[in-house]
């Protein structure tokens, strides 16, 4: 089972066998946002720096930025959530991933939180 890492900005990251990082928003984040109606994703090829705003999710009421959890280059985005943004509300940590990226430093992922650490972080908010 591939380990999932979490950021304090409420993104999750999973490293695939190809070394690419898959990024999405956490279930806690989708819950806080409410009904999601629109998502704007970064262009493949874009270089992003950790904590840089690189995607936008819009609920009925408000827009929120999604941040790059790590530094690297976006390689692919998920067309399924563009076509059906509500998928983020039902499958935030599985099929409703946002984008894949090639990490500048593959070891940087270890600086993110484990599931247990993220849950503890949520409890402290």
């Amino acid at each position, binding site marked *: 089972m591939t380990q999932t890492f979490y950021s304090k900005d409420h993104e999750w990251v999973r490293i695939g066998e190809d070394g690419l990082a898959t990024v999405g928003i956490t279930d806690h984040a989708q819950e806080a946002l*409410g*009904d999601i*109606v*629109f998502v*704007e994703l970064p262009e493949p090829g874009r270089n992003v720096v950790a904590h840089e705003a690189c995607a*936008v999710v*819009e*609920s*009925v*009421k*408000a*827009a929120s930025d999604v941040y790059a959890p790590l530094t690297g280059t976006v390689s692919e985005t998920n067309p399924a959530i563009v076509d059906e*943004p509500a998928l983020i509300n039902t499958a935030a940590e599985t099929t409703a991933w946002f984008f894949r990226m090639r990490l500048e430093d593959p070891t940087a992922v270890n600086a993110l939180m484990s599931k247990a650490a993220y849950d503890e972080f949520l409890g402290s908010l």
Partner: protein
Amino acid sequence: MLKTPLDALHRRLGARMVEFAGYEMPLQYTGIMAEHQACREGAALFDVSHMGQAHIADARAFEALVPGDIAGLRPGRQRYTLLLNEAGGIIDDLMVANFGAHLQLVLNAGRKHVDLAHIRAHGVAITPHFERALVALQGPKAAAMLPEGAALRFMDAAALRVAGIACVVTRSGYTGEDGFEIGCAAEDAQALTGLLLARGATPAGLGARDSLRLEAGLCLYGNDIDEGRNPVEANLTWAIAKRRRADWGFLGAAPVRAALEAGPAEVLVGIKVTGRAPARAGAEIRNAQGEHVGAVTSGCFAPSLSAPVALGYVRADCAAAGTALDLIVRDKPIPGVVAPLPFVPHRYAR
């Protein structure tokens, strides 16, 4: 922060609470989409106790402060009107109902204290009942859930008993749907609400209230109208009664009359936005030539249309229905078109 008489109920129902006009109010219970849909298809129940109920005995004196026909408002009838300042700017928009012995006003939460001071400053006695509860039961099934109000038609008002609770009921609301606004004493609010929920109403929060009123093309004070806007610019000319246009005898009449005769420089319009990205309040509006012609004052994704809609002020030459405009969202122009209001047809029980 202030709480309404229904605060405990909101928490029991698991509402997500937010600050609004100094009150802790429910933003949503299960989700804005579902609550919005419940109002369009069934019946939704909103706590609007943060709005201010107040009584005025002297209708003639009050009429001098508003452009509506108050002297002509028959007992048992309600009407939308505006408090204007001397410059014709909108101090508040409000509902006024004639209960025979007195007028009942329903004032916006964020403006009720300003309104009281303004009305009193002009020598009109007003008695606030801000402690009272007010709920809105809205939707095509509202009438079935409040058979006690069956005799009322749109904009009728009556004192009624609902399961023994003394209520002040108007057949009106702010969602574009048929429905009622029901006022009662604070200590009766939980029982009244419990009864309406037991009859099948869906609790709904401020999030759905906002998307519903925007689809219905109704102004939100503080967003779409304020003291810097007059009724002509705000597309509320219909709220200036014919009789009042004969004598122009209300506070702020001269500048309003001048705006009406000269035509406003900017007008509030509805805009249908292409794509799915909502243009929010503050978004710049440009015309087809790329000129700055206005700004969005309210915008959201309209659940009933599955598309974004907005209200905004635009230069008068860009206000005709069908005019192509660009709305600037995150530095990118998104095409839109001026659309007649309401976006979603009203379904009042006339």
